[in-house]
């Protein structure tokens, strides 16, 4: 009913719905070019995505191309032609991420656990490569084939130091070292100095790419126990791993005999070091069921912090909306009086905080509250450490919200006041109502009805207003004994910290928090729906 409540504008079934007519020539040409481009992109992208094994993106790509052809090649699906572009973006960059987030919340996805168990074991072994007395040494050249010198992918060209035939070997990340089978390279002084089709890195470029080269896993045929390690910009050696994977007992064993058994630490499995922590802080991507949720709901410290952040999120949003509204309303009442001169000038000037981009205002205010040289302390001659104390920081956050937000409310209320007919006020006065009681009994309720949807929308916006916290206080001050929450952290900024903060990124757990936040936002949206709808019925 909400959406079709205006019968005069509701599309009537047949009469007015246009049909696809015979297409004009320019239209046809545009269509052919467009579909051609889509097909070309698809043909280019699909093999690449298959090569990188990105099945999700492959699915998205194929679905997009097929849908575009089905919708735009035929003369049917007219609404689809208009809805497709926006809906496609919305689906890929809003709905898919939400679904993925829900998926992550059931895993231990994080910095130390991104890859499969096999890949993790291989990485551990690669990193532990050691040079043994009899390990072969190679001359080294590093090349890129069309790729980026700074990012790779790199190919190592090696010649064994003791090989009189100077046979060239080539190795790529994740592949076995093998004899070079491409076009003949140029060899000078026992080292590859040019390869047709490749760009060889200079010593300096190799230094710049050092971290990437060290992370390369080029295996020597016969297993991941030994592999090639870049030693200097001109030299590499074959190293032997000091860590062995004992498949039978599912554990890692080091050369010195230390055993790292596969056990549960926290919510997930990993190879456990003697100190009870995961070996090198590493684990692998695995399903942990609802452990993230149970940790969130049953760990009393975490639950308390989540609830504290939730409470502050509510207070923050309510105070932001309520106080900006009150100030805006008060100013609108004050200045919206025919006896006050220069109405336009007042309004234009007071609009200033609304006109300044929000992030600029927030960053400026973060400086103003600085203890040592901030404007606030200077102006009032005080020495208050605003962001050092939880309560003061919260007050500062709200004050800034008021400064930034009151112009919007002022403008909205002025508009609403001007739309209240004069005879309403006149009637109230005749009934013996005085100025103040007219304001509160007659004007305020009328005004509230017209601005309530905006207030609710503003509340919903502030509920996830990450900028207002991050740009001002970064969620600080840090609280002792709290796990990630700072004194002014709202839910969304707390989750951001959990996911991308400095200490131990735990995407799985952060995703579980995000899912709870989805639910809260959904409830909020439903409430917003109801209020807006009820008000629409009222007016």
């Amino acid at each position, binding site marked *: 009913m909400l959406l079709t409540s205006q019968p005069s*504008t509701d599309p009537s079934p047949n009469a007015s719905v246009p049909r696809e007519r015979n297409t004009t020539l320019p239209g046809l040409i545009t269509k052919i070019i467009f579909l051609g481009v889509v097909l070309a992109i698809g043909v280019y992208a699909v093999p690449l995505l298959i090569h990188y094994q*990105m099945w999700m993106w492959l699915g998205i790509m194929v679905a997009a191309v097929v849908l575009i052809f089905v919708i735009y090649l035929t003369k049917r699906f007219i609404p689809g032609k208009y809805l497709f572009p926006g809906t496609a973006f919305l689906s890929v960059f809003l709905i898919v991420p939400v679904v993925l987030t829900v998926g992550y919340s059931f895993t231990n996805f994080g910095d130390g656990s991104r890859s499969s168990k096999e890949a993790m074991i291989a990485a551990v072994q690669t990193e532990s490569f050691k040079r043994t007395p009899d390990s072969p040494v190679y001359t080294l050249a590093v090349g890129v084939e069309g790729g980026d010198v700074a990012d790779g992918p790199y190919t190592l060209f090696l010649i064994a130091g003791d090989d009189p035939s100077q046979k060239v070997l080539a190795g790529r990340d994740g592949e076995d070292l093998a004899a070079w089978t491409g076009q003949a390279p140029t060899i000078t002084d026992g080292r590859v100095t040019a390869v047709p089709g490749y760009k060889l890195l200079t010593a300096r470029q190799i230094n710049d790419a050092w971290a990437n080269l060290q992370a390369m896993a080029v295996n020597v045929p016969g297993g991941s126990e030994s592999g090639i390690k870049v030693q200097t910009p001109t030299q590499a050696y074959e190293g032997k791993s000091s860590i062995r994977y004992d498949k039978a007992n599912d554990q890692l064993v080091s050369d010195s005999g230390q055993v790292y058994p596969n056990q549960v630490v926290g919510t997930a499995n990993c190879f456990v070091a003697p100190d009870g922590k995961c070996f090198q802080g590493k684990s692998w991507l695995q399903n942990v069921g609802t452990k993230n949720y149970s940790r969130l709901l049953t760990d009393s410290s975490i639950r308390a912090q989540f609830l504290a952040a939730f409470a502050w999120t509510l207070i923050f949003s309510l105070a932001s909306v309520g106080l900006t509204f009150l100030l805006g309303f008060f100013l609108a009442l004050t200045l919206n009086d025919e*006896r006050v001169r220069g109405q336009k000038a007042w309004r234009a000037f007071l609009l200033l905080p609304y006109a300044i981009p929000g992030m600029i205002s927030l*960053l400026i205010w973060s400086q103003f509250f600085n203890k040592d040289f901030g404007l606030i302390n200077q102006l009032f001659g005080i020495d208050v450490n605003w962001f050092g104390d939880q309560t003061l920081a919260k007050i500062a956050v709200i004050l800034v919200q008021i400064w930034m937000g009151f112009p919007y409310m002022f403008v909205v209320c002025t508009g609403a006041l001007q739309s209240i007919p004069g005879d309403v006020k006149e009637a109230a006065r005749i009934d013996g109502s005085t100025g103040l009681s007219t304001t509160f009994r007659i004007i305020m309720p009328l005004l509230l009805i017209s601005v309530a949807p905006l207030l609710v929308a503003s509340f919903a*916006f502030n509920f996830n207003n990450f900028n207002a916290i991050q740009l001002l206080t970064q969620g600080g001050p840090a609280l002792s004994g709290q796990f990630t929450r700072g004194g002014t952290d709202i839910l969304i900024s707390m989750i951001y910290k959990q996911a991308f903060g400095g200490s131990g990124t735990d995407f799985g757990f952060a995703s579980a928090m995000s899912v709870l936040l989805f639910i809260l936002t959904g409830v909020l949206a439903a409430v917003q729906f109801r209020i807006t709808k009820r008000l629409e019925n009222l007016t």
Partner: protein
Amino acid sequence: MSSSKTQTQIHRHSAGARKRWWVEVGWRYIIGLVMVLIVGVPVLYIIGVSLDPQGSTTGSSVFPSKITFDNYTTLLGGSKGPFLRWYLNTLIVCLVVTVLQIICSSLAAYAFSRLRFTGRRVGILALLLIMMFPNVLAIIALYSMFTQLGEAFPIFGLSTIAGYVLCLMGGALGQVWLVKGTLDSIPQSLDEAAIIDGASHFQVFSRILFPVLIPIIATTAMLAFVGIISEFIIGSMFLKSADSMTLAVGLYGLLQGDKTANYGVFAAGAVMVSVPVVILFLFLQRYIVGGAVAGAVKG
């Protein structure tokens, strides 16, 4: 005697009028002035900091010790980071995202307002609900999606403007409501006449309705544009290389790098970002206020 009495009366009368003026009107000016101070002082102060070569951090004075353009030349010179590049990046991102969002939103609004199809009402409700979830709630998934995408297509990876734009397109239908509302208020007879004249549905949209929509679209575009300037969370996560940053990410980094030393330079940047936007706002004030009241909330 009598004359002096009249004088007192007159005096008393005008004092009473003045008192009444203060009670009824005068205080309004005072409150207005207080608000002007609250709004104006921070703005003037930051302009002062931007002109002060020492960035107003050392002295105890609120006024700049000396007025120079040193901070501006430092910032434009690029020694604190490629400011002009950030400016350009921000312009590109805001323009591209705004234009694409407006196109997607207008097309969808046309379908919802003028075309009949099954699932129309469900679709519109679902959209209303979905758009309430800001995509920052799914930042972790977006992060890994774009890490992947960047491996296959480096131009859409993290630290690229194209990838960032693509990610922001999750809000492609953010402007549907305003446009649909306006479309609903345009009489259907306008398109019916065109259809009888042999216009196709696309011609009805592009030649008849779109021109009527231009004012509301300009307003929405302006609000969306300014909102995107302030986008920070996805930017800070995606744009790690200095050359790919937007103003929001770059200026934040500048300030975090060294709050004291970079204060003046940051203030200069803040002034240079705000001045064009504020001027635009003042010129388009009427339309923007109208659009804001119609339901858009600026970020």
